[in-house]
């Protein structure tokens, strides 16, 4: 597959002091669903707006089909866009909104009518063509915006947090709907969101942005199972991050000490050679909990005290404290911890070496409360 879009050393600054986007290099392949994921202010939306043509790079260039976009105004880029609040035109009906891109392209009336009808069918709104956007629910407006951005068959469709205004249930069904439209039409989609769950369910590839640069680019599975640094480990899914002192690295594994709790063996993350401070990252579902008396076969085994128990129906989470004061969260089936998952109980926790990794610590501190307990993300 060829790159349909290429960001080549793109930088953007508004004030000449801080860079919103720093030396961005990214190839977007034809037909893929690529998500730009990151916290607010990470440069993902600016990167999208530069592709749409509403912002200009301070340096570098963006290529579309191998041609520079530098001198192409937005209206000649042939890129469909779905905006955060849909940007439907309130003075036009749904049909007129969808017909708009065809009218400005001076398509014949018969063709416009036919394609508007097909677009309405595609998003299951065939009967609502005569309504005004404000008479529609949020989910319906969203679908109109998608139909309008696709009706002129652009090469690429851009979506800027398109589901941000919808409630959770609607958001999940819209995720599936957008995904299935993408698969049916085979159009290249670039999607911006700060919701990692959304990114994981929808994308072929995800580019994780932080401070104007890409931290990691890969498939959802790659990002989840092999985060390349502490930021990604923490940003995608839930993760326990515990500071540790690195003792030795050998090949792909390294040994470290969790102060006061004991030694830990883990995969090698992104430590620099000779670096001694690190963080151990292990996901809650990889933490096994056993009664204190039971034998533990894990490579890394510690004794811990239960500080809190939270029941989620299909699973239960235990907030645990190790002997050295490190806090972590485990996730297991309710029936597995029924007897000993009690506050104040001492037990044994463990995980495999392959299920944890040691990274260089990032300046951004880990949140004081484990993410798992803030909400069920």
């Amino acid at each position: 597959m060829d790159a349909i879009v290429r960001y080549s050393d793109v930088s953007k600054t508004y004030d000449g002091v801080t860079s919103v986007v720093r030396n961005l290099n990214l190839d977007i392949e034809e037909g893929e669903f690529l998500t730009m994921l990151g916290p607010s202010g990470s440069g993902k939306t600016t990167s999208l707006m530069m592709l749409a043509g509403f912002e200009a790079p301070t340096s570098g260039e963006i290529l579309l089909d191998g041609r520079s976009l530098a001198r192409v105004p937005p209206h000649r880029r042939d890129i469909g866009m779905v905006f955060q609040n849909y940007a439907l035109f309130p003075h036009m009906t749904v049909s007129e909104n969808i017909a708009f891109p065809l009218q400005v392209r001076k398509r014949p009336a018969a063709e416009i009518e036919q394609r508007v009808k097909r677009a309405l069918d595609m998003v299951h709104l065939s009967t609502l063509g005569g309504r005004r956007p404000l008479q529609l629910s949020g989910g319906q407006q969203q679908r109109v915006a998608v139909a309008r951005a696709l009706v002129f068959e652009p090469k690429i469709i851009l979506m800027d947090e398109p589901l941000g205004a919808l409630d959770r249930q609607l958001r999940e069904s819209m995720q599936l709907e957008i995904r299935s439209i993408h698969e049916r039409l085979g159009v290249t989609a670039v999607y911006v969101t700060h919701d990692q769950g959304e990114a994981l369910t929808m994308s072929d590839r995800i580019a994780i942005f932080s401070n104007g640069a890409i931290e990691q680019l890969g498939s959802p599975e790659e990002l989840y199972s092999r985060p390349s640094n502490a930021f990604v480990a923490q940003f995608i899914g839930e993760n326990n991050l515990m500071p540790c002192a690195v003792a030795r690295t050998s090949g792909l594994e390294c040994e470290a000490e969790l102060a006061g709790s004991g030694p830990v063996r883990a995969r090698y993350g992104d430590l620099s050679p000779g670096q001694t401070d690190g963080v151990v990252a292990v996901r809650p579902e990889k933490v096994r909990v056993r009664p204190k008396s039971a034998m533990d076969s894990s490579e890394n085994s510690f004794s811990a005290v239960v500080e809190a128990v939270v029941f989620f129906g299909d699973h239960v989470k235990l907030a645990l404290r190790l002997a050295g004061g490190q806090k972590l969260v485990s996730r297991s089936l309710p029936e597995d911890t029924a007897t000993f998952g009690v506050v104040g109980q001492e037990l044994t926790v463990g995980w495999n070496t392959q299920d944890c990794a040691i990274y260089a610590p990032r300046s951004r501190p880990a949140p004081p409360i484990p993410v798992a307990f803030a909400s069920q993300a």
Partner: protein
Amino acid sequence: MAAPASAAVSFGSVSASEPHDRLWRDLKRSQRAAQLRAIGLILPLVVFLILVFIVPIGMLLSRSVSDLAVPRALPATVAALAGWTPAKEIPPQVYPALVEDIGSAPQMLFGDAAARLETGTPGMRALMMKTRSRLQGAAPSDARKALTGISPKWDTMEGWVAIKQASGPLTDHYLLTALDLHRDELGKVTRVVAYERVFLAAIGRTFGIAFTVTALALLLGFPFAFLAATSSDRVSRILLFTVLLPFWTAMLVRALSWSVLLQRTGIINDALLRLGLVREPLDLMYNRFALCIALIHIFLPYMVLPLYSVMKTIPPQHMRAAASLGARPWMAFRRVYLPQVVPGIGAGALLVFIQCLGVFVVPALLGGPNDQGLPYYIAFYVNRVLNWGLAAALSVILLLSVAVLYALYVRLSGKSAMVLG
């Protein structure tokens, strides 16, 4: 659908009708306090408006059709003329009736009646006054002979037609006059003679000036409001401040400062003379040019503010969306932005236009004789001529034209499109 509905009805009729009624009563009672409170809050304003606004305006407007001066002063004459039309002979009983009325009418009522007759038929005031002073309260046996002896005019139709047409209690005389029309001797509505036609021209002038000022204010205000609505908060605050500044000075002061600038010995002429651009001072004042400039300056905020408030509600994404869908900037503006600003244009234009119709001070200070609109004539008839009926009729025309404009606007823009700031 039908099954649950009928179930609910049967449930209600069997066991819940009594509680339902009580529920309804409770709801009403709980709302009563809130209603009383709402009425209490608006009552002072309602009373104030009725006393100082609606009643006086109603009284003034009623003067445009009420016509009581003549029947009050000359009741017997009016009664004697009741069945008469100008096609018939003058009935003989009107002569003694007039003599009797002149003998008994108090000085002031008689004066009012003479003045009223004069507005319909020039010369009537003199005739009436002459007749009264010659009769000197006497009651001649042959009234007809006595009157025709005082003036042969009493032998012709003219005077009697004048009294007949003014015999009230309602009249269309003032409204017709305000439209350069009158009733001829046979009661047919015709145009007045050419040199007396002033009001239609004044109405046209009033509307023409209002239209010019509104159009130019829109032309100047639109880009300004657009800039204010699309710039950063700080910049837009400064821009709005500059446009609101004129609000802080009285209209009279603003008009006078324009005259300081524009007069023959004013700042502009001074500067032009010193720079050697002109040899003689230009006539910048007492003409339509000066009037329009001052009106635009004074009314611009009324154009800018509604435009601004509407533009502020249009998300900037709309123009971006239009561009991403393939519309050139002009097309995006015309098809996406402009239609959404229309309510603001309508509201701003209406505000400016209506105020231009009613403005009096500015044309009086800066306009020439040919730039005076209806308000000038209204003031003239109230203050100088004391013809309240005609002033009221001109006011009615002004009020009606505003009402028509407003209705037209509401009709064109749909019911919910009115946005006033």
